[in-house]
Structure formats: C-alpha cells, structure tokens
C-alpha cells in the first residue's frame, strides 16, 4: 500500500506493460465554504477496474464530475491516452469518450427508454436533422438484449422501477462505446442478481480495454470486481493500491483515518408485545399477499429481489398506496390507513427509498429538511422557535455525523450519503412506534452505516418496532432479529436470526437453489 506523500505520485506501477489511459494531475475544486477536492493526482490504466472509495462527502462524485465535464476544476490538468485534454462540458467529455453514470439518476421521466439511452446522440437519417426512430428503437433493443433486460424500449421512464431505471442508465453508458466509463454507486438500487449482471458486463468491457472507474460503498463488490482501489478522505487522495494487497480493514482505516471494528454492531434487544399485525395485505399487481407481525423492540429485516413487493408493503402500511382488503392492527386495534397523515397518527413512520423524489426538499436548507416534522411542536402561536429548532438540528447533525457546512446549506448540495442521513434525522424527530426503513443505508459509507445501524438498534431498544427493507444481505443478516423474505408479491419465508443464511434467503427470494453470487452467473 502506498500513502500519499506531498506531491509525489501515489501510484505503484503494478504491471510494467500497462499504459496509462487517464492521468489526473493536481486537481482541485472548491464550492463556497468547502474544499471538495484538494490537489488530487490519480492515474488509471487501459483495461482496468479502478474502485474509488471514501466516506460520504469525501469528494468522490465531485472528482468524477470534473472528469465528465459536469463541473470544471479550479486547477489541475487531465491527460487522456497521453494527450492533455480540456474537458469543458459534458458534450466535450462525450466526444472524448468519457461516459458517466451519475449517482442521482439522470433520466428524463417523460421520455422513453430508447430516447433516454440515445439522448444527445440520436441516430439520424443520412441527410441531416431528423431522428431515425426505427434505428434508435432497434439499437436500444439490441443493448437491452445484451444486458438481458426485459422491459420495452418504448416504455416511459416514469413507469419503470428504480432498479430498472438504473439499468437504463447503465445501458446508456455502455452504448456510448466510451474509453472511460465512470459508475457512481451504480448498484445502490440493485439487488444482488442484477448487480451480478452488471459486473459480468463490466468485466467484459475491461477485456475490451475500457477503463472503468467504480465508486461504491459495498466492500464485497470492491473485492470481487476491482483491480485497484483508490481511497479519498476529506477531498484528498489518501492512497492507491492493488486490491489484492488490501483488506476491508485497511481500506476502512484509510477512509476514516482510524480503525473501525464492527460494521454491523448487533446489540441484544428485548422483544416486547405485539404492536403491528398485518393480514392478507394486498395492493395492485406488485403485492399479492402478505401477513406478518411486528413486536416492540424487534428489528425485522425484509429481504427479496428488487420488484418483489417489499416497497409496496411499506407504501401500503404508510397509507401512500391503497390497501385492497388486508387487515392492519396497531396495538390490537384494527385500523384503516388511507393517507400518510393517518399512518403518522397511528405512530407509523417511513423512510422512503428514493430520497431525491420522495424524501427531500432539495432546494431547502438542511435545517428545514431535518426539522420539518417538528415545526408543529417547536412553535408558539404559529411562530417557529428558531433557537430550539437549531438546537435540535445541531444535535441530529452531530448524532448522525452529517457533513454539512452549516444549517443553511441546501439539501440538494449535500453528498448523496449525507442527504440520506438528513431524511433519517427527520424521522428521529417524530418518535414513531413503528418505523419502516426502505433501503436506509443506500449509498452510505461504512462508518456512517455502522452509525445508522447502531441508531436503529437504539431505537429498537427504546421499544420501537423496526421493519427494515434492504437488498444487501450482509446488512439484513447483521442487524435483524427476524427475517422475512418476499418473492413475486408474496411472503415466502421467515427465518429467526439463528436460522438465516445468505443461501437460504436467496433461495426463498428466487425460488431456486442458489450458488450464484458476486462472481457472476
């Protein structure tokens, strides 16, 4: 492992015959109040998968956005295949053969899959400016086939699930036939099976000499996939090394600058009385039949493939979607939940999976986002008590270790992981009896993840019943007391903490015996 020392190149040449595809030299970028990227020098080889890791807000996305032309650097130079290039706009990056899958999905919801894949590069008729729609559809179909995707090329993006949208982003990036493809947390919305498809694809692109830069918080993926790992902390590059020479421990230590022992700290919880009983919950085509019980102080993990109806359960319980005939009982009382307000009144909270659309007011300050549900309580005669609100918000920021330059920062400018923490902070304010978390640690770095897990455990210890949806099996196995598994809209299995294994859960989730993991199908 090589640590960054002054301006000297932190790279140890692993194979002499490898050539540089990309050389970033002394890149710096600041935003008002933050030095997001500070003097970063980083190289990438032809035909390699370079993992870029770091805590939330470390500057990974910012660095890659500079490379893809979305931001311009304050200073520094970029060499592509030995030539110095000026990447002044996303268009320029495209022309140079650099494609990026952005962390927050960048698709146009009202347009079709095919239109989105070819946005900005539509196939034209020979003569000029008219789009060759047939060719566009056919080419898009080819790409979808290649990826094994089964939705229609003329489907609207707004009708697709988040996982499907993510796959469209991936299709878009590979269709550019780029030299450099940057993937900013592409798997955060995917389940293991879909991630497996993506990884196979990435490996074959690597064979073809494409350079892939891959940002992820999932350690297993990094080890399964990458050739080298580059670690960032507080805007600086702290080290680069071949993956083979690293362990999870060393990477995390570089990321946080100290040693971190347990990623999924499991505290023993006391199971109390029944607080939520659900019988034959049904809604639309996605959720066919689910019956289960939650106890006070218990953490229940809900596993399953993306699209298996997990989110649907959450939405129905929270009154966001219609309950078609199922029975819901809270503390023994049969209740009808028609709206989120009613759900909140019955003490049910939901952290949604799509923070950008459903969870955050992107244009508003961190303070308003975190404390909005306290406004009622922390006001007098309709006037907000700003002192108290600030005090509470500061507490939450500290408790969740949210990186914000101040309380006024726009939530939209936070790094992805910090946005998620703000959403969780909001629910801490409400003190629900039952808290449903849909992919609560999506896009969250290891150390914050541990913080969120211990937070969840703390809530459970206070008697909150927790239902946690997650596509990450280690997470489910790590903190759940009990695990429910869904497949195609139905609950198919229930395991106690002792019984559950990755294999059993995957079997229940797919209906097949499982031996396919990260290493592809």
């Amino acid at each position, binding site marked *: 492992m090589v640590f960054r020392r002054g301006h000297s190149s932190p790279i140890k040449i692993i194979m002499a015959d490898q050539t540089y595809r990309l050389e970033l030299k002394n890149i710096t970028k600041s935003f008002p109040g933050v030095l997001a990227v500070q003097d970063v020098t980083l190289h990438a080889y032809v035909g390699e998968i370079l993992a870029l890791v770091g805590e939330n807000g470390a500057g990974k996305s910012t660095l890659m956005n500079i490379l893809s032309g979305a931001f311009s650097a304050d200073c520094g130079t970029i060499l592509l295949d030995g030539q110095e290039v000026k990447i002044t706009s996303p268009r320029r990056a495209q022309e140079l053969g650099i494609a990026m899958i952005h962390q927050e999905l*960048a698709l*146009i919801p*009202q*347009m079709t899959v095919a239109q989105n894949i070819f946005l*900005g590069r539509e196939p034209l008729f020979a003569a000029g400016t008219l789009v060759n729609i047939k060719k566009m559809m056919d080419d898009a179909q080819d790409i979808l086939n290649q990826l094994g995707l089964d939705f229609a090329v003329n489907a609207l993006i707004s009708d697709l699930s988040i996982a499907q949208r993510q796959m469209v982003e991936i299709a878009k990036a590979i269709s550019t036939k780029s030299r450099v493809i940057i993937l900013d947390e592409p798997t955060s919305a995917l389940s293991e099976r879909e991630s497996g498809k993506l990884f196979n694809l990435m490996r074959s692109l690597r064979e073809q000499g494409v350079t892939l830069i891959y940002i992820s918080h999932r350690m297993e993926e990094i080890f399964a996939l990458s050739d080298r790992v580059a670690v960032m902390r507080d805007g600086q590059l702290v080290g680069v090394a071949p993956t083979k020479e690293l362990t999870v421990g060393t990477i995390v230590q570089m990321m946080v600058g100290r040693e971190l022992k347990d990623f999924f700290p499991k505290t023993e919880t006391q199971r109390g009385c029944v607080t939520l009983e659900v019988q034959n919950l049904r809604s639309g085509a996605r959720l066919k039949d689910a019956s289960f019980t939650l106890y006070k102080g218990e953490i229940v993990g809900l596993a399953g493939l993306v699209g298996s109806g997990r989110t649907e359960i959450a939405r129905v319980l929270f009154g966001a979607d219609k309950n078609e005939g199922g029975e819901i009982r809270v503390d023994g009382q049969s209740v009808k939940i028609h709206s989120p307000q009613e759900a909140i009144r019955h003490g049910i909270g939901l952290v949604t999976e799509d923070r950008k659309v459903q969870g955050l007011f992107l244009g508003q300050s961190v303070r308003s986002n975190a404390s909005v549900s306290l406004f009622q309580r922390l006001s007098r005669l309709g006037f907000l008590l700003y002192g108290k609100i600030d005090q509470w918000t500061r507490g939450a920021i500290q408790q969740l270790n949210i990186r914000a330059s101040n309380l006024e920062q726009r939530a939209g400018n936070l790094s992805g992981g910090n946005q998620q923490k703000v959403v969780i902070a909001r629910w801490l304010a409400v003190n629900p009896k039952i808290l449903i978390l849909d992919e609560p640690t999506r896009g969250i770095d290891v150390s914050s993840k541990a913080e969120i897990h211990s937070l969840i455990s703390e809530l459970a210890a206070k008697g909150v019943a927790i239902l946690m949806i997650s596509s990450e099996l280690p997470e489910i196995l790590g903190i759940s007391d009990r695990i429910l598994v869904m497949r195609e809209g139905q609950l198919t299995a229930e395991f106690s903490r002792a019984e559950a294994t990755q294999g059993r859960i995957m079997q229940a989730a797919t209906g097949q015996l499982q031996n396919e993991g990260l290493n592809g199908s």
Partner: protein
Amino acid sequence: MNNSFLQRFLSLIRTNSGLVILLLVALPLSALSADFITVNNLLTVALQTSMIAIAAIGMTFALITGGVDLSVGSVAALTGALAAGLSTRAGLETYPAILLALFAAVLVGALNGAMIAWGRIPPFVATLASMAAVRGLTLVYTQGRPISGLDEQFTFWATNISGIPVPLFVLLFVAIITYVVLHRSVFGNYIFAIGGGEETARLAGISPVRIKLGVYIISALCAGLTGLLLTARLWSAQPNSGIGLELDAIASSVLGGASLMGGAGSVGGALTGTFIIGILANGLNLLEVPSYNQQVIKGLVFIIAVILDYVLKRRLKKV
C-alpha cells in the same frame, strides 16, 4: 384479466383524451342543433379555429420546455399592423411587407428567448414584459387606429378555394412542418428533454440555451402567422387584435395534453384542443346561449377536461 381490459381501455382514452372530449362536446351539440353538422357550419368553425390553432401550436413548443409565451397576442397584433402598414402606407409590395413583418416577429421571439435562456428570467415574467412592450409598439405604430386598404394579394389569405378557407391550408402546412420538427427532429427531441429535466439534458451534452432560443422564435413566428391571417380576414389591421390570444392558446394546448410543468405536449393535441374550444363556442352560439353564460360554460368544460385527464393518468399509474 378484467383488469387488463379496463387498463387498456383507460389507456386508449388517455392517449386520445382530446378526441374523446371532442366527441363528448360535439355529440350533444349535434343532437341539440340541426345546423351544427352542416358542411357550411363546420367550415366556419374551421376558419375561426385555424388561426388560434397556429398560435396554440407555437404555445405548445414553449409549454413543453416548461415555459410559457404570454406575448403571442401582442406579437400577432404587431405583425398584422406592420404588414398592413408597410404594404399600404409605406408603399412596399405585399409579400416583402409580409416577410418584413414576420421578421419582426422573429426578432421579438429571439428577444424573449435571449431573456429566458441567457438572462435566466422566468418565462412568465420575460414574456409578460414583452407582451406589454410589443402591444405598446403596435399602438404607437398604428396610432391606435386600424390600418385598412389592403390589396387582394393580402386578403386572398382569408378567402376560400373551392369552398375551403385558405387559413385551413396554412394551418395544415404549419401543422405538418411543426409536427416533423417537434416529433421527428433532433431539435424536437431536445425540446422534450429540457422540459423533462434541464440538468439531465445538460449532462447529456445538450445546450438548453440554443433550444430555448429556437422555441421562442417558433412561438413568435406562429403568433405572427396568426396575426397576418386575422388581418387578412378583417381586411384591416386592428391595434387591439389578438388580446387574450395567449389564454386561448394555452387553454388549447393544455386541453390537448400539454403539461404546464413541461415535458409533455404534441402538435396533434394542440389542434384537437383548439377545435374543442372552437366547436364549443360555435355550438353555444347556435343554441343562442348568451355570451356571458358561454364564458362560464367554457371555463367549466376546461376544468372538467383537465380533471378527467389527471384522474385517468392517476388511475393508470395504479393499475
């Protein structure tokens, strides 16, 4: 099974909601009034609506980007007045006069586009300002009085060819061109793209500035054509013509499925939308409904149509 039939039925209605509303309006009218379904009457409706329809098509372009163009009425008046003034008082030939007038419309559109794209002034504000300023220019140029004395080359554009009003041909021509531009060309694709997500479009390498500039020029050009046809039809340019045209154009586009939030709209929709309003007005006239009451009915139909569209959309999401 039942469900999927229902869904297909609903989505059929939804994608053709304009036509459905057209039928819903037209059927009772034809039952109530014998004069309604006559060739003559329908041609009258076509003549009246074709002018608004052209402006509505232009408005649809602006709406799709998530903007709006409030200046269309004023631009229509200015174009008509300039064409009439240049060809009579200034002694230009008719066609050069018309071309110059249309060029003025393009200039106004470019100015709108520049304010919105470069100046980052919200479209509502930018075009509200030019609506006032351009109307003022028209009043200054005409001295507040109609300009008449147009020659036959000019008035030809409001006559009939074998019984069919010429403005209808103009509309057809405009509709075909704009259809190709909006639904077949790269430029059109980008109009939808920036309406659906400007940042996304920018990241895909599209320049929102150029697209917006083009959109407001198209809108102004359409408004200018409307102004010319209105002038031809009245045999004179009226300084106050086109007042309220922006509202008719917006209502028509929205009835035809354009979204004020951007990202949705179509040339076909703008056409159907205008014809719905036109047929309704005509039918109410035939039924001798007093004009004050007509306003109320029009407003109600508009609300119902929009709600219907919204409800269907939600219903479909669910199923």
